[in-house]
């Protein structure tokens, strides 16, 4: 979430107050009050970019925090997001947001599997305000669609958004595919890690922590045309050990095995309702997914962070996290022939058992 104050802003306090008001409308699921507020700000002459990034974006950030703290449900998160989307749409059609194209053309898309479209949508609107011709492809864009789009348009760059780290292997495929047709890629979103470390690892041409920085970066000048004969596997030599592909391919059977063994070890699990059992299986599936991603990136820290975060999320929902270490232990036993996976699982267990309640990193 960006907290920087743009120079054009007449009254930062007012904007903050408006963000607070918008939050209350969003929390009430009052779509009309939310759009009215945004339109009123624009009518009063507030810079549209500031409405998008200093009012709507912080509210969306807060939606995620409220979910993590179990103060709203996933369904409510979607309701809030839908209202924010409407607010963005209201900004985009307001006369104050009318611009002419003075720069080149940019394609803005979310990685396949990425459902959090709002950050990409905000960037698309900001780029339009700054005079770019923008093709906004939305959430969950399959890489073949993205490439077909690039073949039929003359985009100067692709801006690719992803918020969840587990989409990074897919993001890597998308980045390299765009580059292979000669279009440079700017990436953004929480998935790319603190300081955009995974953006560099996955060979993105540029990274930006937020929409304003992304727009500034694109304004600095053309991103250089990527080398088209680059090979994806050059970037991640550790993938040669096949640990990632084995874990990713067998994730469902790993979850099944660990689930059944856990049930034997924890007789209490047998009294779980179907819903509780499914939640438990889902938690295991996430763990395996994050393990696979950490293997892909060769980053044990990512896995440890996820496990610590999961422990916190479970605690916020009143679920005791004491089943996590045995689950990790069972996974390690299943993956005993996988040295990298074993090291990651042990490191995470160590952190869990020594400092159970501190997360290494913010979720945003």
């Amino acid at each position, binding site marked *: 979430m960006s907290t920087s104050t743009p120079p054009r802003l007449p009254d930062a306090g007012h904007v903050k107050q408006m963000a607070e008001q918008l939050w209350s409308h969003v929390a009430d699921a009052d779509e009309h009050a939310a759009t009215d507020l945004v339109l009123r700000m624009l009518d009063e002459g507030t810079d549209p970019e500031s409405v998008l990034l200093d009012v709507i974006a912080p509210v969306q950030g807060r939606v995620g925090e409220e979910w993590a703290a179990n103060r709203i449900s996933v369904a409510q998160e979607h309701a809030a997001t839908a209202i924010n989307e409407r607010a963005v749409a209201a900004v985009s059609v307001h006369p104050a947001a009318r611009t002419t194209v003075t720069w080149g053309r940019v394609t803005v898309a979310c990685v396949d*599997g990425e459902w959090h479209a709002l950050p990409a949508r905000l960037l698309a609107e900001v780029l339009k305000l700054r005079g770019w011709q923008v093709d906004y492809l939305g959430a969950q864009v399959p890489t073949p669609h993205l490439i077909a789009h690039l073949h039929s348009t003359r985009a100067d760059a692709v801006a690719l958004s992803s918020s969840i780290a587990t989409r990074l292997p897919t993001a890597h495929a998308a980045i390299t595919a765009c580059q292979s047709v000669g279009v440079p890629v700017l990436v953004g979103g929480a998935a790319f890690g603190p300081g955009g470390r995974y953006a560099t690892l996955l060979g993105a041409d540029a990274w930006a922590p937020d929409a304003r920085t992304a727009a500034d970066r694109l304004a600095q000048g053309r991103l250089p045309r990527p080398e088209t004969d680059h090979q994806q596997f050059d970037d991640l030599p550790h993938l040669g050990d096949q640990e990632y592909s084995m874990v990713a391919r067998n994730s469902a059977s790993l979850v099944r095995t660990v689930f059944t063994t856990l049930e034997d070890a924890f007789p209490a699990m047998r009294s779980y309702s179907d819903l509780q059992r499914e939640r438990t299986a889902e938690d295991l599936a996430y763990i395996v997914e994050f393990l696979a991603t950490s293997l892909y990136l060769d980053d044990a820290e990512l896995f440890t962070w996820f496990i610590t975060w999961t422990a916190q999320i479970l605690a916020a929902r009143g679920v005791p996290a004491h089943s996590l270490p045995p689950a990790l232990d069972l996974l390690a036993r299943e993956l005993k022939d996988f040295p990298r996976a074993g090291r990651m699982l042990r490191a995470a267990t160590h952190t869990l058992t020594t400092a159970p309640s501190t997360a290494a990193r913010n979720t945003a």
Partner: protein
Amino acid sequence: MWWLVDDTDHQLAREALHMERERTAFLAKASSTLLASLNLGRCMDVTAQMAAESLADAALTVAPARGGRLPVVTCLRGGAPAVSTLTVDPDDVPGLGEALRGFPPVPSRWIDPATAPAWMVPEGFGPVGSIVVTPLPGHGVPAGALIMLRKAEAAAFSDEEEVFTRLFAARAGAAMSAARLYAEQTAITDVLMRELLPPVLHQISGVDFAGRYRPSADHERIGGDFYDVHPAAVEGEASLVSLGDVCGKGLEAAVLTGKIRNTLHALLPLADDHQRMLRLLNSALLSSHHTRFATMVLASAVRRGSTVDLRLTSGGHPSPLIIRADGTVEQADTHGTLIGALPNISATTVEASLAPGESCVLFTDGITEAKGGPMGNVLFGEERLKRALSGCAGMPAEGIVEHVQMLAAQWLGNRPHDDMAVVVIATPRTHHLSAVNGHTRGRYTA
């Protein structure tokens, strides 16, 4: 024997070898860069830029004219390619008209710099020494021409350089014509697709509509699921929603989908009688040659005061689910025969009423039959869908649609799936009646 070789010749041979290596590397780079893109503009950029870097002081790529306008990319050595569209007659430049026609092939042609039109010489280039126009031969279609300029102080193009230029031109021409053919093909499919893609939904006469569609395969944008919302011809009457699933997949399914949507559109005057509509549609689709069918739900929705009145009819399709304000999820009790395969069909229509914040969810079986979950082999199923919807009471229509599609997508993971379509009809939660009079629609919908 090598020691008898004259030292000057030896030096020359080394230089020639070096030059040959550089040229081979240049052609290899040209091939890999040009073949990577199927975009005509990008191919023109690359051609002009590479020519300006290695063969001349400036280069222009010219594509065949469209409607009397000539697309041109100009690039100075060390500069970035610049795009322009010129209203000029290529036949005014000797050799350019023939080169752009492509066939029969013509050789490169020298132009007297004094007769060159102003548009050919990039700004700030200075006095021109020599100009050569080289055709870019394509896949049996005209691909364009390459114009190269050298400064007055530079040497003119040698015969050898000209031969080499033709090798480069052959690669550039092949890339440009492939891009052009691709663009023509996609333009045709795009026109067809536009008709077949589901529409973007919004509020109509005080009723909220939202829909979302995910085709089965990543490479397809259309398939067997469809939905439409037809606003009432007269204000105060019901809008008609149709959502359905055509058997099969790919283009064949898409064609049947198009036929169904067109027929339903033509039957709109009968929209107050769902069963008659379905019977007529059924006989329109019946064919002696196949038993391809569709299953579908028709929903008529009209705002009355603060509620929305619904009539729902299923033609062999999973029944719609209604989310009440307290989170109860009801299944609409409508059943019927699939459409298009049997001579006689029957269907029942049910009525329902949606209070503010309540909604009705229409979906295709791609959602309920999504196979996956944490264990990898479980159907998403109607019960799981109902459970998810019970948490959606009071949500905006778009939010519910997004939520359902996201849950199904997460359930699937990376596994293959069928088409998935969801439409939500909802009564707006707030009594914001200005939304009903129609004046504000433009502001609230993008």
